[in-house]
């Protein structure tokens, strides 16, 4: 049963399985386990990133396409919902209909752009393609800030959501398990449900015959063609699936934040975060997206506090010359950067790869 759900692609490492289970349970109970607005926000961001990163893993880890335009689709989803909510909101607030229409529009646009990008990838190869997507993403970001009438420009869009999803909505009189159930919590569980389902669907896709062909194309597209797979079709297919999922992730983020802007969804920085998570988690594993996202989002949000707690601000460490300047919470990015480097050093196959290598001895060597 569980094997079916996981599409016959189990974690294949006991520790990994335990970690994954803990993550899923932790996220499922986050509103009750970790009180506070910040904690819930972090958990929601983890959810969105799991989806975003998993969709990118399909593209990068499984198909071997390096694209920097992935956040473009993420942004399209977010803006789709945001624009629909600002434009289509009626007298009595924004309805789910408007949001769904926004999402549908965004998915349509992503489909179109995904196709275009896919076509371009036929003309230019690997690194040139990567650079083109980099430029396209930059251009799209520029466009989003130019069309400020529609997108709110640099400032982005704040919008309202259906009443059930607002913090003001409190269906129950008394707190449940010590937590007041409000619209935020409901939104959180909406996110959780969608992310869980779509992630399992992605897992299914990569373990389908289609997904295996993607791997073949990644390994040697010339050979894949020579045994009868049209790599253009598969590449485009993979681009489209991942673009659509990224769009969905964007929509979820917007729904959660009730805001969207260029820095939140379109910036190169986010693209980089995604790339990093894929690599740290373990490329081409899907599960890497889960562990990586949780770890990274956590670090991103609590590193600064960690430094403060360690005494980087006003504490004894701050007094030490030179080191004091380095461990100041204001320099948290320094440590994140260092984390980047060390992770790439120490997890060449990512967390999942590392965990799996621990538990299996691998195929036996030459035994003629």
């Amino acid at each position: 049963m569980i094997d079916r759900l996981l599409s016959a692609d189990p974690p294949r490492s006991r520790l990994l399985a335990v970690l994954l289970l803990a993550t899923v349970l932790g996220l499922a109970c986050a509103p009750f386990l970790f009180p506070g607005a910040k904690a819930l926000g972090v958990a929601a961001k983890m959810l969105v990133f799991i989806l975003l990163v998993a969709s990118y893993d399909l593209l990068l880890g499984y198909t071997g396409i390096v694209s920097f335009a992935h956040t473009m689709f993420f942004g399209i989803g977010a803006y789709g919902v945001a624009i629909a909510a600002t434009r289509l909101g009626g007298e009595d607030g924004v309805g789910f209909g408007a949001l769904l229409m926004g999402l549908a529009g965004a998915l349509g646009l992503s489909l179109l752009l995904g196709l275009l990008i896919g076509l371009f990838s036929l003309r230019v190869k690997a690194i040139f393609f990567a650079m083109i997507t980099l430029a396209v993403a930059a251009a799209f970001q520029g466009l989003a800030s130019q069309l400020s009438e529609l997108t709110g420009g640099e400032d982005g869009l704040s919008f309202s959501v259906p009443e059930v999803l607002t913090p003001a909505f409190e269906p129950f009189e008394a707190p449940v398990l010590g937590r007041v159930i409000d619209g935020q919590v409901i939104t959180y569980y909406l996110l959780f449900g969608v992310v869980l389902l779509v992630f399992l669907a992605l897992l299914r896709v990569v373990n389908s015959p289609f997904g295996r062909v993607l791997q073949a194309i990644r390994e040697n597209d010339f050979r894949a063609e020579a045994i009868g797979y049209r790599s253009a079709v598969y590449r485009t297919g993979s681009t489209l699936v991942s673009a659509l999922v990224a769009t969905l992730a964007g929509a979820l983020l917007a729904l959660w934040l009730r805001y969207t802007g260029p820095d939140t969804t379109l910036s190169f920085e986010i693209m980089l975060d995604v790339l990093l998570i894929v690599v740290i988690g373990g490329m081409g594993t899907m599960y890497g997206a889960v562990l990586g996202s949780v770890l990274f989002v956590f670090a991103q949000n609590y590193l600064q506090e960690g430094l403060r707690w360690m005494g980087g601000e006003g504490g004894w460490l701050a007094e030490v010359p030179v080191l004091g300047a380095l461990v100041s919470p204001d320099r948290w990015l320094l440590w994140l950067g260092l984390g980047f480097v060390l992770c790439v050093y120490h997890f060449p196959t990512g967390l999942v790869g590392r965990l799996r290598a621990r538990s299996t001895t691998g195929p036996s060597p030459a035994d003629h």
Partner: protein
Amino acid sequence: AGEIRIAHIHSKTGPLEAYGKQTALGFRMGLEYATNGTMEVAGKKLVVIEKDDQGKPDLGKSLLAAAYGDDQADIAVGPTSSGVALAMLPVAAEYKKILLVEPAVADSITGDKWNKYIFRTGRNSSQDAISNAVALDKPGTVIATLAQDYAFGRDGVKAFKDAIKQAKLVHEEYLPTNTTDFTAGAQRLIDKLKDQPGRKVIFIIWAGSGNPFKIADLDLKRHGIEIATGGNILPAMASYKNFPGMEGATYYYFGIPKNPVNEALVAQHYKQFKQPPDFFTAGGFSAAMAVVTALKKTNGDTATPKLISTMEGMSFDTPKGVMTFRKEDHQAMQSMYHFRIKVDPAFAWGVPELVREIKASEMDVPIRNKR
């Protein structure tokens, strides 16, 4: 006794780190000054919780929610960037607590995105633009504008244009924000201006990367064209040294306002850091003055409705003299300063000398919110 918790959310890191740092410093100095060093109002301790929005709107938003929700902040101050501020506004309304915006400048913060929990001590773009217009607006002057091609630049030019009464605005040049080579734009401006009669001025509204002042290197003088722009932080005013005599209007320069508060700020700042306070330091200081003044009036009561009614129309001292939150949109009305640049070897920057203080009453700052 009890305490009063104030969250100060600003860019401790990120692209605006330098601005955020100034604001935070100014804010702390302002609290010290306003409470005579006790950090208490009406017997209640002022606790400042600093948070870093990294210049990211989504983060700012969740930090503000956490500040009101998790940290029980009674009032919040910040943030540095307008994008972050706009994302934050609804949170204040959700938590029904005050957000005192400083120094984010976008008009829409007190304009169409405003809600009644929002106050702002910082100047808004319109105030900037209008004061510059007032400074340059003379009969016989011909003006062309050079601005970044996005909302900030376009809004600024629009406010500037609306405020021009006597001078003639002949051209608006908008260049992409990522422009590095200004030759083409300069050439277009020259073509538009060179055959005009009278005093010819290019008014520049530019923030962020790129250096539009380079157009002066194209020898604008041979066409009799001058450059004008608003004030800026001190390091940015280093390039003003190349433009002695340049006119414009600024929000703050430490040498300009003459009042006890400013004197105290400048003296204290020199004492601590051996250098004068800058643009955003004054802003942070003003915000602190506003907070303490309000709290003193309510006698330490932090109930939001009470605070709002106290602060609406409230006047308070700042390094820039007296400011007043106007009732309609909670924007602090304040003086701006018409300056002329003088080169003084003692300073690393072009020194803006006061030509004239433009009083709040002289500026017709439109009310744009939907109240």
